[in-house]
C-alpha cells in the first residue's frame, strides 16, 4: 500500500477513457475543468453548497468539488458535455430547459441538468415534490425555480413518450 502524492490514472468520462496525471489534492472538478478541458461543469462555491459542479458518478449525482479525483479510478463519470448527441442535437432534458425558459444566465444549468438526469433515470414520472427534492442541492439565483420545475416535468414527459 503506497502513500501517493500523484499518480497516472485512467478515468472514464462520458464513455471516453482519459489517461491523466492526478495529484492527491486534486478534486474531480479541478481535473475535469483544468486537465481535461471539460469546462461545462462549473465551479461555484467549492464547498458542496451550490450544486454548480454536479456530475454523475456511477449514475448518482455528486458535488465534484468535494470528490478526490484519485478516488475516481474505475468509476463512470457523466458530465453535461456527454448529453447532446454528436450531431449537435440537444438531449430532451436540455431541450426542455430551453423550451421552458428555465435558463437565464446559465451558470447553474449544467448542474441542475445533471441532477435532473439522475432523477429521471430512476423515476420517469416524478411528482412536483420529487422534482423539487431532486434539485434541492442546486442553487439558481436567476430563474426563481418555477420554470426549472416545469422543464423537468416536460423532459420527463418527452422521455416517457420515447
Amino acid at each position, binding site marked *: *500500500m*503506497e*502513500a*501517493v*502524492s500523484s499518480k497516472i490514472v485512467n478515468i472514464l468520462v462520458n464513455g471516453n477513457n482519459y489517461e491523466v496525471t492526478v*495529484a*492527491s*489534492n486534486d*478534486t474531480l472538478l*479541478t481535473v475535469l475543468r483544468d486537465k481535461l478541458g471539460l469546462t461545462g461543469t462549473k*465551479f461555484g462555491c*467549492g*464547498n*458542496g*453548497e451550490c*450544486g454548480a459542479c*454536479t456530475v454523475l458518478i456511477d449514475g*448518482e*449525482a*455528486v*458535488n465534484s*468539488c*468535494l*470528490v*478526490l479525483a*484519485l*478516488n475516481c479510478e474505475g468509476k463512470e463519470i457523466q458530465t453535461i458535455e456527454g448529453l447532446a448527441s454528436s450531431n449537435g442535437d440537444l438531449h430532451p432534458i436540455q431541450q426542455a430547459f430551453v423550451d421552458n425558459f428555465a435558463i437565464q444566465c446559465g451558470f447553474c444549468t449544467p448542474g441542475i441538468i445533471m*441532477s435532473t438526469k*439522475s432523477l429521471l433515470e430512476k423515476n420517469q414520472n416524478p411528482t412536483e415534490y420529487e422534482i423539487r*427534492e*431532486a434539485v*434541492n*442541492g442546486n442553487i439558481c439565483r436567476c430563474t426563481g425555480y418555477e420554470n426549472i420545475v416545469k422543464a423537468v416535468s416536460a423532459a420527463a414527459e418527452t422521455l416517457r413518450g420515447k
Partner: protein
Amino acid sequence: MSYPHVITKTIKEFKLISPTTIEEALYALNEYKTDTRIIAGGTDLVPLMKHRAVTPKYVVSIEKLKELDYVRLVGDQLRIGALTKINTIKNSDVIMKNCYSLYEASLVFATPQIRNVATIGGNICRSSPSADTVPSLLVFNAQVKLVNQKGERIIPLEQFFTGPGLNVADSDLLTEIIIPIEKGEYGTAFHKISRNTSDLAKVNCAVKVSISHEKFSDVKVALGAVSDRPIRAKNVEKLLIDKKINAENIEKASEMVINDINPITDVRSTEIYRKEISKVLVKRMLNLAVERAQK
C-alpha cells in the same frame, strides 16, 4: 486593485493511502499515526482541508472498504456499517420500520448530492454538536464499534463525544453502529429546525417513547446544537417515566429541557431562540412519538 494569488480554494498537498481491506486500513492507521486523517465520503473533511482548517500529511481513504457498507437486522440488533451512505439509510425499509426517527433524519439531511456520498460513520466521527443522525442513535442507546490493530471495543455512543469536533477515537476506525431494537410497542420522532435542509441545525431533537397501561414506561429525549456535543435530556426523561400520558405532564417536562441544555449564539441562531425552540421541539416530538406508539 489586487487580486488574490489563488482564486480557487485548494487543498494542501498530502499523500493518499487507499487500503482495500479493513486489515490494510488498520495497518496504515498504525503505520502513519501522526498527522493522518481518515476520509470516508469527504463531505466534511474536504471543505475543512480546503479552508486549511486541517492540513494532514497523510489521508487514509476508506472508500474501498465495501464490507463496511450494510444495514442488517441481527436478532434484536440493527447493525449499520460505518460506510453506509445517508441515501442508503433513506431508502432502507429495515430502518424505516425499526428506527423511524433515523429515517426522518435522513430525509432532511443536506442535499441529494451530499446524501449520495456522506456516510453515517463520518457524521458520527466529525462529532459536530449538530450532527443529524446522532439524536436518533442516542435515543436508541446505540453503541459504536472502534477497531485498531490491537483489537476492538464497543462503547455507548453517548460516551463517544468529548466536545465540538472531538471524540474518543484516537487512531481507531469506527466500523459499526449497533442499535438495540426492543420487542414491545414504541414510537419515535425526529425534527430539525434549520433555514433549509442543506443547512445545519439550529436545534434538532429525537424522541423515543414506550407505553404501557397509558403510562410512559420509557422515555428518551436527545438534542443537537444546544451544547458542546449532542446530549440526552435526562431531566425531561426523569419527569415522565412512569407518569400518565397527558398534555399537562408533557408540557411540564418539556419546560425542564432548559436544565439539560447550554446553547450558544452563533451564525445559525441565538442562545435565546435555541432555549425557547428547544422546549417547543421537545413537546412536539413527545406528542408525535406518543401518537406513533399508540398506532
